[in-house]
């Protein structure tokens, strides 16, 4: 009997608890990129312990949708893997700030029967593979770069790429456009492009599935995905001439190497970055906020952004995200402090 009377009481307390929380907290909503979602979701839940009066709600609907919702004013902040274009910024009535939060990178993964050691590729060879110009694995262009690797004879290269619009594809095609003029002219940079060759798969898991199941396949996936699934990755030759494998530190090094050339609004590509240890296929992911914000919400959001630049960055490596380089943090902080309230 006692347990029965306890149930409605417990339900009542629970409802009361939820309603008081909801009333008391300032609700900030955002939507956008799915790539940084695991990190953001960790941040937002951790931040509840830092400041109980704020509740940040984030939906990972994709960068394109995030920008659209933000421009429409349905969300308080947006999130995007690629910086907004001038045309998109012009649609907004008020100035928009790009706040880099963490870094994304693209790893090239492969499945060559019998090859265990890390494969080395130059940018030019990589572009030619993804354009369908180099068709077999024992092509001299690949063999000369990897004298220690025994490449199989007559093994066709199967290119696997993303079929869904994605920031990962944007970073990868941005890199290929920078290092190959043929790529830039014929294909270009975008979240989904007209691929000259290869199979399309949905999501990182789709590309990984194709690569794993097709001997001779090569594809590109998000760095976090490649690291947590321990996929074989290509060491790419960077601008300084060094072969670098993608890792949390080599990606941070890319931002560090490109620091001097960064414009003040942070809207810049950092692929093919200079720096000895820089991994060349990397990019920032951004939160998008208004320069002028309503007072209550604005102050809370600014406090959160400051926290994300300090304590938040420390949580990144555990989740396989590359933190922003220390040299960049003060610049971003200054930008965040520049947000004004009305």
């Amino acid at each position: 009997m006692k347990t029965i009377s306890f149930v409605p009481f417990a339900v009542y307390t629970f409802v009361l608890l939820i309603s008081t929380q909801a009333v008391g907290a300032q609700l900030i909503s955002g939507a956008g990129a799915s790539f940084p979602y695991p990190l953001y979701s960790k941040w937002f839940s951790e931040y509840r312990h830092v400041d109980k009066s704020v509740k940040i709600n984030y939906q990972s609907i994709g960068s394109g949708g995030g920008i659209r919702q933000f421009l429409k004013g349905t969300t308080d902040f947006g999130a995007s893997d690629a910086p907004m274009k001038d045309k998109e910024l012009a649609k907004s009535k008020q100035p928009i700030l790009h706040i880099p939060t963490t870094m994304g990178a693209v790893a090239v993964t492969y499945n060559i029967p019998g090859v265990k050691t890390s494969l080395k590729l130059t940018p030019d060879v990589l572009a030619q593979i993804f354009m369908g110009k180099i068709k077999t694995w024992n092509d001299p262009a690949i063999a000369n770069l990897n004298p220690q690797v025994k490449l199989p004879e007559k093994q066709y290269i199967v290119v696997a790429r993303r079929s869904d619009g994605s920031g990962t594809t944007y970073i990868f095609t941005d890199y290929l456009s920078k290092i190959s003029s043929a790529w830039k002219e014929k294909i270009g940079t975008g979240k989904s492009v007209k691929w000259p060759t290869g199979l399309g798969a949905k999501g990182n898991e789709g590309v990984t599935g194709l690569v794993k199941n097709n001997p001779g396949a090569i594809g590109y996936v998000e760095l976090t995905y490649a690291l947590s699934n321990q996929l074989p990755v290509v060491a790419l030759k960077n601008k300084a001439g060094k072969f670098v494998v993608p890792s949390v530190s080599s990606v941070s090094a890319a931002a560090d190497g490109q620091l001097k050339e960064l414009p003040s609004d942070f809207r810049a590509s950092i692929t093919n970055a200079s720096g000895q240890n820089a991994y060349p296929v990397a990019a920032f992911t951004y939160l998008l906020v208004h320069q002028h914000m309503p007072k209550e919400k604005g102050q809370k959001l600014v406090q959160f952004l400051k926290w994300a630049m300090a304590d938040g960055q420390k949580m990144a490596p555990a989740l396989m995200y590359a933190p922003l380089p220390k040299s960049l943090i003060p610049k971003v902080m200054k930008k965040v402090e520049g947000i004004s309230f009305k």
Partner: protein
Amino acid sequence: MSQVASTTEAIPQRSRRRDLHLADRIFYRVVKGTAWGMMVLLLSMIVVIMTMAWPALKEFGLRFFVTNDWDTLGDSFGALALIYGTVMSSIVALVISVPVSVGVALFLNELAPRWLSKPVGFLVEMLAAIPSIVYGLWGLYVLAPFLRSEVQPFLSEAFGFLPLFEGPPLGVGMLCAGVVLAIMITPTIASVCREVFAAIPVAVREAALGLGATRWEMLRISVLRTSVSGVVGAVILGLGRAFGETMAVTMVIGNIEQIKLSLYEPAQTMASILANQYAEADSDLHLSALTAIGFCLFVVSLVVNGSARFVVSKFEKRERGEV
């Protein structure tokens, strides 16, 4: 005489309304409202989709449906390859699924002992309850490698002279999508077929057997021949599902906007390009073109479902002896 008849008929009609209790009247209004609400919802969906699709339809006109060009960066869109992909993958699915479904239905209804037909029938219907993403992942990780290493080399060897089985075996592609779709639509077709077969009176079967027909002849004459329109209805329902299937197809079709006869080649369907590109479409024209695809799919589904209804209702009428 006729006037008397009409008034006696009219009175209960009118008084039914007037005699309604207050609670009944409120209930009547509420359910009427929900019914109209559904209509309004459907119409407003059509209006919204049309207005969003309009810029692309205006820009490309008929060209949108008859050219194959899907250039997201160059803002040039033609959906022919997607329409081809949808139709072709559904045809492959039907070719595999229809004989299997009809066979399953015949076996379970006419031949199998009761202790077998119940659990097997239940299992076949269970196939419909599996989420499509599970089919997709199974297709990508299990079926595609199997097709690539076992089935496709065999098909190439046996039927390689046909353009349908040309090219290197990749696993994923039109064939893989067709097989996955076939499995997904089999429960739909099989269960409707079973209902159709069950509707045939026992007397018809007994008549055939009484005339000295064998089991097979009885099935052919009194079951299959009399239920053609019902089976067609079932197939159209399955086709409707195949047209609209998104996630599973996207995972295994290879996602390239091209028109190739070979079933080994990757392709793209109307539903799969929506799943692929809608979330990250940047340019307004791109978004509008995708909505136009959605509209196209919407119309096709309405037509397919409508015609299935029509065929099935005709069949039911004949069953009741009205035709």
